[in-house]
């Protein structure tokens, strides 16, 4: 199987603080990979390097055969963990912005996602609840026909109904041609949609593997393994 992402000996230092310590990781096409770790473990730093927002101190990062740059940015669809739309916008404006920016934006797919999320195009961004924000942002991100989807904490802080809709949208939009990388510390809610898990602790990968194989090997759900790895 082809790798969409290849990371080798990746290190990132902020001055003398090490945020990522020589991590290596491959993501195969068609896989959903969960990056699990508490706050401050390096998840967001890793994502920022993959999306080209930060440069690594050393190591190689390849996405779809290329180093991080204009091409990789065009095939990576990224859901940040905070709002990135202007307050004055309506959902319709946000869609136009995405259409202008990304040639792989699929308007039909977006409309279907909006329908599914029960959002209307004339709604003002300003007036959306936290859950609605998250649903809109995810709709924009999933409406692109990307090679790699990066979802940073997609269900953090949303109510259980919105959470289920978000999980459904992620599953419905799974396809064998692209990969997904999802960071979360809400392992219980997310684990059944993950193929592979990567436990990140203080900038290092402490455990990684196929989620089902880990469950089988340890006789525990990933959530319990998480508590074991990160609980003191």
């Amino acid at each position, binding site marked *: 199987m082809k790798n969409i992402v290849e990371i080798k000996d990746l290190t990132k230092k902020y001055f003398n603080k090490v945020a990522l310590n020589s991590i290596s990781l491959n993501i195969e096409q*068609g*896989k*959903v990979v969960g990056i699990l770790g508490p706050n401050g473990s390096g998840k967001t730093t890793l994502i920022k390097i993959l999306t080209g927002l930060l440069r690594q101190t050393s190591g190689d990062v390849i996405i779809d055969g290329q180093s991080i740059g204009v091409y990789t940015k065009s095939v990576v669809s990224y859901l940040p963990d905070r709002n990135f739309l202007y307050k004055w916008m309506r959902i319709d404006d946000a869609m136009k912005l995405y259409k202008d920016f990304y040639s792989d934006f699929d308007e039909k797919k977006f409309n279907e996602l909006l329908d599914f999320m029960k959002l209307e195009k004339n709604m003002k961004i300003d007036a959306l609840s936290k859950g609605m924000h998250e649903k809109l942002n995810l709709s924009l991100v999933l409406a692109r026909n990307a090679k790699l989807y990066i979802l940073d904490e997609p269900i953090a802080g949303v109510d259980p109904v919105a959470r*289920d809709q978000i*999980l*459904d949208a992620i*599953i*419905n939009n*799974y396809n064998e041609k692209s990969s997904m990388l999802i960071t979360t510390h809400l392992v219980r809610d997310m*684990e*059944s*949609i*993950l*193929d592979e898990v990567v436990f990140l602790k203080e900038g290092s990968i402490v455990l990684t593997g196929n*989620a*089902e*194989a880990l*469950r*089988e090997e340890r*006789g*525990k*759900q990933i959530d*319990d393994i998480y508590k074991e790895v990160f609980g003191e």
Partner: protein
Amino acid sequence: MEFSENLPIYIQIMNLIKGKMVSGEISGGDKLPSVRELSKELKVNPNTIQRAYQELEREELVFTQRGMGTFATEDINTIKTLKKTMATELVDRFFIDMGKLGFSSDEVKSLILDWIQREERE
């Protein structure tokens, strides 16, 4: 569905389907939901559902027809065997748990007889 047992999810899904086959909720020859449908319904990665179906096929409980989907076996004997196996597992677990509570086989036997008598009266 909550996957809380300490088993891989694909095995929990297999058990769910096996249970439905034994209870008759799924009859011989019935078409099972597609991988995508079941994936949506259970909120589980499609690759995991695929794995569950493959294992069920290996156990000859289901069969795949190319382009048509996955179907429950029509072989009555296979279902009978499955029913027996699942029942035996339940009984085994019951006796182990009762043993842990300190019940002897005779005590368990009288408990079961009491239970049956009560059922019959009602």
